[in-house]
């Protein structure tokens, strides 16, 4: 079935180029209305296949719409709307445009039915999002942005190679569940996807760049790139069991490194990786419950990570500080921000009645059904760590702790409204699960609120809080950074250069010598022959032509100076003289004018009498 439809990405991608032409209130209204329009479009669409175009003999499918793509589209557009409210005060058209290209291309990947269109949107996503890092206009941001884009280019190359291998194996670019054949194409595409999902050791683009992005930019970034990766993995790689292991590693890795951070946006970034670990486990399990859990967790993650990044951004905006060790005592000046932040915190920690509770429970139950108790235990430990860092440590050291007497006030209303909307959604999802189940992509029968489940969750969380209280001294943030695998390309690159200068120099001398005798000598002789040909013949022609041109130019130059300029100058001189006369005559004294008029009248009368 193919029929005409308007792709929601077009609203954002084409719409982005209209932004600079609109000003003031019109622009702000436009920025908010387009997401609403896109949401209306996506809600009204019936599942099916739309927008199929022939391109070089291949089918490009821009609109593969089913429940899985729809739920991601809903949340992306909702987050686009929330993010635009949060960013509405920003007077930088470039950032708004980049955000829209980013949103539009994310939707493009979500709806792509073939690998070629998916790849194109995948790349637009990377390049649009990096602008949100560059837009901070600081040296660290520029550096982090370049590292970010390098890794994403690598991910894109892996994906492209994988796609081509996949095509040569199957003869098809269709994007769907892959064959678990262990072919190279299978793994290349998987690596491309996993890099975007923040899989260690190539996860460092995420905690490296997100804290360096603009305040509003990081809110968008936390929502889209990684969740798009979750979507493509859900679509293509569900039931790939290695992802259970990868996911558990990611969850532990993220939460461990988060514990070490002092920059709170970096801490939150590591928790994105940790939360993505849960989703990977869900995707790897591949049962209906697990995949629903992964999708639901991605949806919830967009919302509560959005709140956390918005809250963190609000604090940076109002205080100018981005390190926990510099903050403290903000509860007096920013209480509303604190409350809204805590809604996000309770959601990510999976408190009952908050969003994360549902989705985390689904994944853990699915792992239990799969008889993987060790995985469940490890993930529960990660829950404890998440609760400690995100919901206890950050608020404690930011809003309570040592009162550093920082001058601050609540952020602009639009920021609070954006956080409030996301907060209401988090509580709504957690409190009314049936409503949420109805949009989940796979059939579901799951009772999250059973007695033992609630008590065990509360048990873990409350006694984690006790542990936090006991360990509080150990957690006091210091002015330090922590190493991660980005060391290899940040410090490692420099070490390699030093190594190259010393050790490689010896080899280089030998190779250079060899090169000069075997290659350079003959080449030089050849070159000298060419040179003489060049000087004698070619240069002769060129120089001759140049002389002719110069002569012509000289003639025209002189013509210009003496003839044309002469005429122009003489005209000017005449005008000049003329005006000099008239200037003198215009003395401004009434008696002079009167005299001239009288003399003139006398001349006329005299002429009339004489004539």
């Amino acid at each position: 079935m193919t029929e005409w439809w308007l792709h929601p990405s077009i609203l954002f991608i084409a719409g982005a180029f209209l932004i600079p032409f609109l000003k003031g209130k019109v622009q702000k209204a436009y920025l908010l209305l387009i997401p609403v329009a896109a949401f209306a479009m996506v809600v009204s669409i019936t599942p099916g296949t739309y927008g199929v175009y022939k391109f070089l003999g291949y089918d490009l499918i821009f609109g593969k719409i089913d429940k899985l793509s729809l739920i991601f589209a809903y949340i992306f557009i909702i987050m686009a709307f929330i993010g635009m409210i949060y960013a509405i005060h920003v007077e930088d058209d470039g950032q708004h445009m980049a955000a829209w290209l980013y949103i539009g291309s994310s939707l493009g990947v979500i709806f792509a039915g073939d690998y070629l269109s998916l790849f194109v949107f995948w790349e637009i996503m990377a390049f649009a999002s990096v602008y949100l890092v560059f837009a901070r206009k600081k040296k660290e941001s520029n550096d982090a942005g370049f590292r970010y884009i390098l890794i994403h280019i690598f991910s894109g190359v892996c994906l492209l190679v994988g796609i081509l291998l996949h095509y040569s194996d199957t003869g098809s670019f269709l994007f769907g569940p892959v064959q678990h054949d262990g072919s190279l194409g299978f793994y290349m595409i998987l690596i491309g996807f996993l890099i975007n999902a923040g899989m260690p050791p190539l996860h460092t683009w995420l905690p490296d760049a997100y804290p360096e992005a603009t305040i509003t930019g990081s809110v968008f970034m936390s929502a889209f790139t990684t969740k798009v990766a979750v979507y493509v993995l859900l679509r293509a790689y569900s039931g790939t069991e290695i992802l259970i292991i990868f996911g558990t590693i990611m969850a532990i890795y993220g939460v461990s490194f988060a514990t070490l951070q002092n920059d709170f946006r970096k801490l939150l970034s590591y928790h994105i990786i940790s939360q993505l670990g849960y989703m990977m486990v869900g995707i790897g399990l591949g049962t209906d419950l697990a995949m629903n859990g992964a999708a639901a967790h991605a949806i919830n993650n967009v919302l509560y990570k959005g709140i956390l990044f918005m809250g963190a951004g609000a604090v940076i905006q109002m205080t100018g500080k981005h390190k926990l060790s510099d903050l403290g005592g903000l509860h007096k000046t920013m209480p509303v921000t604190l409350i809204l932040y805590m809604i996000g915190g309770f959601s990510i920690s999976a408190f009952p009645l908050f969003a994360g509770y549902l989705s985390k429970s689904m994944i853990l139950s699915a792992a239990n059904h799969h008889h993987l108790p060790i995985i469940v235990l490890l993930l529960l430990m990660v829950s404890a760590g998440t609760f400690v860092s995100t919901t206890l440590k950050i608020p404690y050291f930011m809003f309570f702790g040592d009162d550093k007497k920082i001058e601050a006030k609540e952020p602009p209303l639009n920021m609070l409204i954006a956080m409030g909307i996301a907060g209401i959604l988090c509580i709504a999802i957690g409190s009314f699960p049936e409503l949420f189940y109805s949009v989940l992509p796979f059939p579901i029968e799951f009772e999250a609120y059973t007695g033992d489940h609630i008590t065990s969750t509360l048990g873990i969380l409350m006694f984690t809080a006790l542990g936090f209280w006991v360990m509080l001294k150990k957690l006091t943030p210091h002015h330090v950074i922590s190493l991660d695998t980005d060391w290899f390309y940040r410090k490692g690159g420099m070490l390699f250069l030093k190594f190259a200068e010393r050790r490689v120099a010896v080899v280089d001398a030998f190779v250079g010598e060899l090169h000069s005798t075997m290659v350079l000598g003959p080449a030089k002789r050849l070159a000298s022959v060419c040179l003489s040909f060049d000087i004698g013949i070619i240069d002769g022609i060129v120089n001759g032509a140049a002389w002719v041109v110069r002569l012509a130019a000289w003639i025209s130059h002189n013509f210009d100076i003496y003839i044309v300029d002469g005429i122009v100058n003489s005209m000017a001189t005449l005008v000049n003289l003329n005006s000099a006369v008239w200037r003198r005559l215009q003395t401004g004294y009434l008696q002079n004018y009167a005299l001239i008029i009288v003399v003139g009248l006398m001349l006329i009368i005299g002429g009339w009498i004489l004539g």
Partner: protein
Amino acid sequence: MRIINYIGDAANWPKIKIVFYISLVVVFAVDFLVERHHAETWWDKTPGWSAFYGFVSCVFLIFIVKFIGHIWLYKKEDYYD
């Protein structure tokens, strides 16, 4: 707002601590009363397990991670400059 100012005031912390400890006891006690249909492993069947595990994993995680941080991963802020 008032709750936040109440929590923020250090003078009230003894009271808050008492509330916190009571809630811990309540959570721990209620875990003995609920039915466990879905429990798969011996620890899931043990009442109070989650409380124990939550506390232990929190302390363990912080301890291990901070230890690795101090001996290896922590660097001065200008390390990469």
